[in-house]
């Protein structure tokens, strides 16, 4: 199919500014969601290092744990937790779009599907917390 434009050389090509994600709230929130992965990855690296300390002896493990109690690391974990919650909630919402649940041929409303997922997530977290609290203190 031939385009009906007169002179391709005369086309104006607008460039996307590097700050495009600051133009709209939804773009900004999208970028936050992308950024959240960096913090979650960071948290996982710290966790893996912490696990690795187990084999390095009691002193090394205690030193590592002491380091994590410093204000900087507590702040990092606070921020990572906020991003992890944001990521998880938006993830559940996107799941309702990607894999909608059909009940009697009708799609379940997305908010309901998201709420059910978050409810299940909270329930599982609660069970893990209860099991953890029930562990003997020496474990």
């Amino acid at each position, binding site marked *: 199919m031939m385009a009906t434009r007169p002179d391709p050389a005369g086309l*104006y090509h*607008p460039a996307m500014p590097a700050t495009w994600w600051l133009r709209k709230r939804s773009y900004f929130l999208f970028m936050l969601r992308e950024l959240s992965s960096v913090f979650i990855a960071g948290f996982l690296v710290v966790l893996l290092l912490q696990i690795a300390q187990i084999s390095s002896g009691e002193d090394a493990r205690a030193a590592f744990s002491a380091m994590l109690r410093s204000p900087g690391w507590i702040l990092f974990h606070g921020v990572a937790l906020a991003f992890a919650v944001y990521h998880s909630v938006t993830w559940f919402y996107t799941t309702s779009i990607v894999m909608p649940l059909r009940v009697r041929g009708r799609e379940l409303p997305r908010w309901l599907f998201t709420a059910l997922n978050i409810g299940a997530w909270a329930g599982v977290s609660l069970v893990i917390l209860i099991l953890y609290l029930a562990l003997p203190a020496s474990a």
Partner: protein
Amino acid sequence: MSERTITLDVTRYRPHQEAVPTVQSYAIPFPDDWVVLDALNHIKDQVDGSLSYRWSCRMGVCGSCGMMVNGEPKLSCAVFLRDYFPRAIRVEPLSNFPVIRDLVIDMSGFLDKLKSVKPWIIREQEKPLSEGEYLQSPRELDAYQHFSQCINCMLCYAACPVFGLDSGFVGPAAIALGYRYNLDSRDHGTAERREVLGDHEGIWQCTFVGECSVVCPKHVDPAAAIQRVKVDTAKDWILSLVMPWGQR
């Protein structure tokens, strides 16, 4: 009916006159029931006949009057001036597309993409006419119907930063249209469409910003279509690994 006056700051680009777009302001008296397109038609008829833009149906059906209105992709025949009054309205060509003149964008790339997803029913074997039409149940129709409401207005492309950064991205409307045919019980073309939809310039380019679905005037929900094609394609790929003999 009472008339008020509103200012329209309209992007002008006359390639033989200026190298980059400029802005021209028009003060337009308007009755309560005018939409942005009415104001542009008024300018064209009464004030400045050189202003260029596309439109046809004036009722949200043809999809040709898409523009950026105060930075948002809109059908200009569907947005009322009164909702913006007393502030000025910025009218620009749809974002992310090359501009031919004023508010007219070059849609040839979009048309090529639409064609590339083969938006028609592909049959492995056609039935002879004597056997009658291909029947479809209401449920089978329901599976794809809302993805078939697209009017090709390209608002979703104007809202998509991925397309803005990479004009090669097949994009929301074209992928949704391909998916619409994949979902059609009469169609056997999924594998053929996968070449384009499953390409890195297809579904995998999408990072799920989701704005395409927000701006779509027909509630097509292209973002959902793209994510579901991702799931289907991944499932097919896994199946092809575990059951290579089952490949179509």
